């Protein structure tokens, strides 16, 4: 029998892995993101969260499972839909969340996947402050630092980046995540869940590509006020 050299693909994907991509009005970026991911991943779920542009058409590619929300519910809800769908596959072992706008690097996702497979951790989080952020504005950095400090204070964890869309986690985490905050506050909610459920976590440096596209379509800084309000309200109501 000829000795088979392991391609990077088969080396990385030893457990059944699902990539979950929430998609909302990123028609200009999603096609390239999906094409790139499809080279390494066989199970890609794209949740079209009520996009009003051509996102749905752009995502409609071979191998890609597209789930349609009837209208926009928010990124947290889209992630949860993707997780729920993936969990229906009893063989699903690992779950990767990945942003639709092309700000993440596929190499980082593979690196994080390799890490979770080789180490006894439940969830691997990408951190742009351990890694390099390309073309990031100082204002955005400052805003994120505030968000991180806030999240660390409310959860008691020590993370360097709490609002990073690139995460890899195992089935246990996927089953217990149960995101209830529909919008961007889910990032804090995930960290909260890690603290509550005592998941073993690890942060790895990742590169963020702040392209013109992602900058133009990024999270509005003003929206952070809404997020803080919702997180505090949920704290008060004991959720």
């Amino acid at each position, binding site marked *: 029998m000829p000795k088979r050299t392991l391609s990077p693909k088969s080396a990385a994907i030893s457990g059944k892995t699902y990539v979950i991509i929430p998609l909302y009005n990123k028609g200009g970026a999603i096609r390239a993101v999906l094409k790139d991911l499809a080279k390494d991943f066989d199970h890609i779920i794209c949740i079209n969260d009520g996009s009003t542009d051509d996102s749905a058409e752009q995502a409609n590619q071979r191998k890609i499972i597209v*789930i349609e929300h009837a209208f926009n519910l928010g990124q947290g809800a889209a992630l*949860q839909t993707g997780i729920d769908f993936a969990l229906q596959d009893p063989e699903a072992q690992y779950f990767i969340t990945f942003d639709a706008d092309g700000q993440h690097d596929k190499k980082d996702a593979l690196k994080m996947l390799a890490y979770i497979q080789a180490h006894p951790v439940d969830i691997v989080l990408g951190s742009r402050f351990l890694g390099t952020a390309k073309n990031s504005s100082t204002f955005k950095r400052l805003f994120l630092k505030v968000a991180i400090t806030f999240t660390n204070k409310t959860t008691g964890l020590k993370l360097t980046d709490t609002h990073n869309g690139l995460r890899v986690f195992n089935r246990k985490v996927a089953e217990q995540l149960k995101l209830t905050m*529909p919008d961007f506050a889910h990032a804090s909610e995930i960290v909260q869940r890690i603290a509550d459920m005592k998941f073993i976590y690890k942060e790895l440096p990742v590169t963020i590509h702040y392209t013109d596209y992602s900058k133009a379509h990024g999270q509005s800084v003003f929206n952070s006020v809404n997020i803080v309000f919702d997180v505090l309200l949920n704290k008060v109501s004991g959720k």
Partner: protein
Amino acid sequence: MILIQLVLIAGFLILLIKFLLDPNSSQIRAWKKLIGLLFVPLAIIFVLFPNEANTVAHTVGVGRGADLLLYVLTLAFIFVCINLYMKSKQDQRRITELTRKLAILEAKISYKKSGK
């Protein structure tokens, strides 16, 4: 009886009748029903005897009955607003849950068909 008293009393009575004839009233909590039922007679008493409102205001340290009314109204308004906000959040959560379930079901059916 002056005209404004007639208008106010008629309004409160219509409110009471609507409240009692509401077919969904069984879903309203008992304490809310009680408050509603107590509110109408109390309101009518104050409409008929406006000076009594002044007496009540004086006993709690407010100058005029009309001022007391404003303060209580403000409090009630904020209370109702928060209540509605919570209710709308709850509805939002339910709609989210429904829409997500529907999306998953739909995807399940279409991808089973195409065998992807």
